[in-house]
């Protein structure tokens, strides 16, 4: 009897806990439903619709029939699509390296024992608070007018013609502005990494007589590898997605040689009215960015130290 009773109690408790978990699931569903609905509404649905459009004859207003892979074939046959992709890849690689080197350098400066470090921190971060288009317009003036005027006065040969007039120089103009804009932000990521390193490890290395460079290379960098993963991912994505600075600074010129992929897609769809190919190029670009980011995160994760 006693046994049976215990059994019953057990069963009861079991049932009770099942019910509780069911209630919890219900509560969770209620709670999760709102963000999930918003997520699908603003992300999943538009993405799926856009993906569907690449297989139709969409003209920006309506689509009448399915055309299979026509849009993708047309995109791949477009030589400017490939030249733009090449230019974008180059832009991503160069900006990725320079932004991160500069940002890490700035982070080291503002975490050192420098007296002006707090002012410098604000100073380096400010360019990030200016919107891309405004930034582009400001720098367009600097490259087109300000520098040229100074160059003519002081006879600096290299600046006498506006940098935006020449493909190679316009590329570096884009890099300069991008570095100027995003280094401050990446600096913050690196600062977080640097100050999260525990003091005891640093003190131990100091007692062992490690030089500052040695400390940096074998203690600091491995211990803050996570910061690199994040910063590299952000700059990689930012490089592929770069648009506003591109539009406002060079506008794709000269001769449409500095059009980054986002601007190229936008032009194809909205200036030439080729919404089908524009959209399919956007899908291709999404795949490229996703793949590049996946590889980058997997590789840099390997260098992270688990403690």
């Amino acid at each position, binding site marked *: 009897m006693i046994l049976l009773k215990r059994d019953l109690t057990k069963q009861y408790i079991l049932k009770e806990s099942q019910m509780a978990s069911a209630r919890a699931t219900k509560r969770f569903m209620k709670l999760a439903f709102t963000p999930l609905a918003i997520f699908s509404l603003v992300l999943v649905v538009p993405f799926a619709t856009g993906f569907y459009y690449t297989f139709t004859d969409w*003209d*920006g*207003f309506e689509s009448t029939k399915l055309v299979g892979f026509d849009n993708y074939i047309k995109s791949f046959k477009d030589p400017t699509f490939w030249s733009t992709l090449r230019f974008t890849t180059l832009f991503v690689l160069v900006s990725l390296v320079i932004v991160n080197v500069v940002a890490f350098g700035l982070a080291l400066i503002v975490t050192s024992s420098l007296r002006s470090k707090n002012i410098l921190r604000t100073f380096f971060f400010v360019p990030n608070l200016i919107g891309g288009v405004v930034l582009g317009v400001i720098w*367009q*003036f600097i490259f*087109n*007018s300000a520098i*040229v005027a100074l160059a003519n006065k002081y006879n600096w040969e290299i600046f006498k013609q*506006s940098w*935006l*007039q020449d493909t190679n120089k316009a590329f570096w103009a884009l890099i300069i502005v991008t570095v100027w804009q995003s280094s401050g932000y990446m600096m913050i990521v690196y600062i977080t990494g640097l100050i999260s390193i525990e003091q005891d490890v640093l003190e131990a290395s100091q007692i062992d007589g490690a030089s500052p460079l040695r400390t940096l290379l074998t203690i600091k960098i491995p211990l803050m590898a996570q910061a690199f993963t994040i910063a590299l991912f952000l700059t990689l994505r930012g490089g592929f997605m770069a648009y506003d600075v591109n*539009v406002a600074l*060079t*506008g*794709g*010129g*000269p*001769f*449409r040689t500095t059009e980054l992929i986002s601007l190229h897609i*936008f*032009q194809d769809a*909205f*200036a*030439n*009215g*080729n919404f089908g190919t524009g959209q399919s190029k956007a899908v291709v670009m999404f795949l490229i960015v996703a793949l590049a980011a996946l590889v980058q995160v997997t590789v840099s994760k390997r260098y992270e130290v688990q403690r």
Partner: protein
Amino acid sequence: MKKFAKLGAALVASTVAISLTVAAAPTASAATCSKKTTVEMLGTIKTEIKDQFLAAVKAYNASQKCYTLKSIPGDAKLTFLQNVTPMYAAKNAPTIMYTLQEIPDMADKVMDWKGTKLVKLVSPGLLAAANVGGKQVGVPSTAEAFGLLYNKKVLADAGIDPAKIKTRGDLEAAFKVLQGKGKKAIHFSAIWWSLGAHFTNIFHANAGKTHEARLAVLDSLSDGTKDLSKDATFQNWLSTFDLLKKYNGSTVNLTDTEYDASIADLSSGNYGFLFQGNWTEPNLMTAAPGTDFGIMPLPISTTATTYGNDSIPVGVPGYFMIDAKQSTKAERDGAIDFLTWLYTSDKGQHFVADPVTKGGMGFIPVYNGFKVQPATNMARDIAKFVAAGKTLEWINTYYPAGLQETVGKVSMQQYFTDKISSADLAKAIQDAWKGSVKTWRGAKK
């Protein structure tokens, strides 16, 4: 219709029926309306005359009680399609739209103007570009012209009479005289739309003596059968390109800041000529009050009597279209009412044709029965060319979407900065046209 009848029945039954039916009776004047309808228009025709246009809108809204016209700002940095497609997708299309190149894209979405008062007041030639397969999809805003603009004082001081410049040789002689007087001959603008749309049009408009012959050139370019290097008009056009490049006194600037710089240069009194259109006149007059500017043909041939040498390209810069897919009947009526008021009422005509200095838009009238005459120099010059029949067509109206970008931003700017040879330029233009859909023949993309 059925819905309408139901609504009417409900109104009769209500206690306010009497007053409402009186208001709705056709005999009542336009000043009495039961309900105000808001009519939306995208943009302000042009950004240059935004303030003047908005003043006209305000005056219209105050002049009657049925409609409230509202101009919704588009993004001037974006093209017409970039502005309009998201609005259509959101089922929030503007009732009045104004554009030129995208007319074929919009033709099946907008109202047919046929039979309206405004259409009857315009000559068929000015309606042609907005007639798609027999449907009149738009009505014109004004006429504009481009060519060689000149600073009257600078030319007079140098002893140059623009009316006597009849050939390319005469033009070079005038350039030399200006340089001899210590002035810069011409500001030749490298801005992409000036090169891609207007400068290329100088070739296309001179390429045939009839409308049909000019369209045939487009056909052959699309078919890939045209060899531009063997075309005499194209060679003349190239030589003119070279001439303007040679005497260009300004620093080459390929970016958008170029437009303001060109206006500043011509109004400064240091330059004689500028290749642009009469739409710059308000800006020129604001920059240099009291200075007069004129417009003259750009002669490309060395023989004065060659077709087109004495004419300027005059065309309609844009057409008003009224949406038929997402607007109500009341909205369409309001849209027609506003545009009719603007071009036929005394007050509206003043806003249209008065110079900017008097708060008008400085437009050249294209509707018959205009009582207000244009008062600015360039407008009067153009009126004279129109009266004498010395006008060239705007073939650029028929360019396929994106072509003027491809040609203007790439090959024309490359030739301008000596990156490619003239043979390369001819080939690049041929390549850009090859295979393009013949929208000028009514073909669908």
